[in-house]
C-alpha cells in the first residue's frame, strides 16, 4: 500500500528545501537518490555478511540523509536496522531491509515528482 505521499515524505520540509535550494533543488534530489543507492548497497551487503557493526554504520548514515530530505518513514526503518546492528542482531534485519528497499522506491517516485 503506497497511501498518501504525506505518509512517506514531509511536504513542509520539501517546500522549505525548494525555497532554499532554488535552482539547485533538482540537483539535490538527484544527488540524494544516487548517494542513497550506494548506501543501500552497503546496508544490503552488511546484512548478507551478517556484519552488525557495518550494518549499524551504513544504516545510521542512510538514516541521516533520508531525514534531511523529509523521508521520515524511511529514516525510521533505518533507525530500527541501526538498532539491530547495535545489539549485534544483524540476522534479524531481513524483513526490515526489504521494507527499506520498497520504501526507497516510493520515496524516489515522490521526490522525482517534486522536481
Amino acid at each position, binding site marked *: 500500500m503506497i497511501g498518501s505521499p504525506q505518509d512517506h515524505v514531509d511536504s513542509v*520540509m520539501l517546500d*522549505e*528545501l525548494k525555497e*532554499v*535550494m532554488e535552482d*539547485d533543488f533538482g*540537483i*539535490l534530489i538527484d*544527488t*540524494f537518490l544516487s*548517494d542513497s543507492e550506494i548506501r543501500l548497497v552497503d546496508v544490503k551487503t552488511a546484512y548478507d555478511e551478517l556484519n552488525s557493526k557495518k550494518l549499524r*554504520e551504513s544504516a*545510521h*548514515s542512510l*538514516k*541521516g*540523509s533520508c*531525514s*534531511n*530530505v*523529509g523521508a521520515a518513514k524511511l*529514516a525510521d526503518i533505518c533507525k530500527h536496522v541501526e538498532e539491530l546492528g547495535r545489539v549485534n542482531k544483524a540476522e534479524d534485519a531481513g524483513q526490515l531491509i526489504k521494507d527499506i528497499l520498497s520504501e526507497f522506491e516510493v520515496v524516489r517516485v515522490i521526490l522525482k515528482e517534486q522536481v
Partner: protein
Amino acid sequence: MLVFDAGQDPLKVLIADDNDSDRMILQAFVKKQGHIPINARDGQEAVELFESERPDIVLLDALMPVMDGFEAARVIKGLAGENMIPIIFLTSLQDADSLARCLDVGGDDFLSKPYNRVILQAKITAFNRMRLLHSTVQAQRDQIVLHNEQLMHEQEVAKKVFDNIAHPGCLQASNINYLVSPMAVFNGDVLLAARKPSGGMLVFLGDFTGHGLPAAIGAMPTSEIFYGMALKGFSMQDILKEINNKLKKILPVGVFCCGCMVDISFRKEIAEVWNGGLPDCFMYRAEDRDSEPMPSFHLPLGVLGGISFSAETHLYEMKHGDRIFLWSDGIHEEMDENEVMFGNERLMEVFEENQDPALVFDELQQAVRDFTGSTLQGDDHSIVEIQSVPEDGLIENVSGYAADYKSGPKDWQFTFRLGASSLKSFNPLPLMIHILMEVPGLRAHSGKIYTILSELFNNALEHGVMGLSSELKSSSAGFAEYYQKRQDFLQTLDDCFVEFELDHKPLECGGILKMVVRDSGKGFEYNNKTNVKKAALNKSETYCGRGIPLVKTLCRSVQHSEGGRAVEVVFEWRIEG
C-alpha cells in the same frame, strides 16, 4: 578597538560532511544567511581547508571517512590556539556518551539531523556574537598586559629617581633595625634616617594614602626636604613644617601622609617625638621592660595649611639600651585566615612576653607570622626599631651627597648680628652651617662645627642675653624650669643682640676657622681656669658648664674677653681621607 557587531560582515563557514546531499543542504542554508560556505568531504580535508581558508566557524560531521570529526576537531582547536573558533558538531548520534565526546574534543555545540535552517542560523549568529566578544576580551587583555608592562617599567624608573633622592641616609646604622618592602614607596611607605650635625639622629616613617605612583610622588619632596634640612641642622619642627607645607601645596585633597618623626639625642638620652596619624608608636625601656605608647597627637602631614599646623613635639627620656618602635598600620591590619586583624592587643602581648629586648624586633615578626600562618613579606607594612646607644661608633650618613667641589670660598669673613625680634623666632645655625659647608672639604667637620656654634650661641642667648643661671639645669626639675624661663624670656626680649664673627683662612691641607660670638648681656667672671677644671670633675657640670669643656675638646683654643660678653674659639681642620 574592535567594534562589537553581531555579524554584519559575512563569515567563512567550513562545512565538513561526507554525505553529498547533506552538505548541499547545509551549504544552501549558510549561503542563504549571507555567509560563505567552504566544503570538505572528510576530516582530513577539513583540517587542510581550515589552515588555508581560516574560517570563522566550523560545522563538523562526527562520522566521516579518512579522519572523523572528533580527530578533526582536536586538530582544529590546536591550530586555532588562542582564537575562538566555534565548532558545531553535525550528528544524528543520540547517546549521551557520543555527545559528551563531541564536547571533550573541543566541540562547542551540536546540530542534529534533520537539519533545521532556523536553528542552524540562530546558532551561527549566537556563536559569532560570542566569537566577537572573545576577540574584544582578548584585545583588551593584550592592552592590559601592555599597560601593565608599561606601568612596571614606569615604576622602575620612578623607583630609580626616588632612590637617588631618598638615599639610605643612615638607615644602615647599627642601632637601627627595619623591615620595609623594596618597593615600599609604591605602597606609600617612606622610611628616612639621618645623623644630625649635632650628633643626634632623625628618623621619619611616613605612610601616604593610596598606592602606586600617586602615593610615591609625595615621598620624593618629603625625602629631599628631610635630608637637605637635617644636614644643615634644622630642628625637627622646622623640617616638619616644611614637609607639611610642601605636601599641603602639592598633594590633592584626600591624599596626605601619616607620619612619625623622632629626634634622638644620644648624648642627652632624650627623644623628641612628633606623631601625626600613625598608630601608637612605642618606647620600650631596657631597664624595667616597660613599654610606653607614643600616640598620635596631630593630624597627618599635608592636611592643615600654614599656621593651623602644629609641630609641637613630646619629650621622652631615652636611656642607652631603650628602643623606639615605629610602624605603619599594615602590621595591625595583617589578617588571619578568618580575616581577623592582628591588632594592637596582640602587639602589646609581644612586649609583655619579651625576655630580651634585643629580640623584640624578631619576636614581633614571628608573632605576625604565627598569626597569619604565612611569611611576613614586608609588602604592606613597614616597621622600624631605633635603639639609643652611645654616640661614638655610629656611622655617619651613607653618602648620596656629591663630593666637595674643588672651588668654593676659602678665605673670607663675615659678621652676622641678630636683634631681638630675630632671636625670638629664628635659629641662625642652619644658615651659617649652610655657608660654612660651601668651604671645600669642611663638610666632613660639619658635626663638630655645629656643636661648637650651637653651644656658643646658646650660651650667648641664654646666659648672656637672658642672664639665666646654668645652675638650674643640674636637677631635672630645674631643667624644666630653666626651659620654661627661657621660653618666657624669649618673648620679652627687647634691645639686645647676639653677634657672630666668622673668619676662615685656608691652610695647605685644611684651614683655620675663627669664630667669635658676642652678646649684649652683662658678661660673667671668666678668668678662672679652675672653673673649667671643676666642671670636668663634677659630672653634673657637663650639663651646665656652659658646654665649654666640650667645646674645648673640639677647638685649638677658647678665649673669653670683653668682660665675658665675647668668646673666641679657633677651630683648625684638615682634609680627611
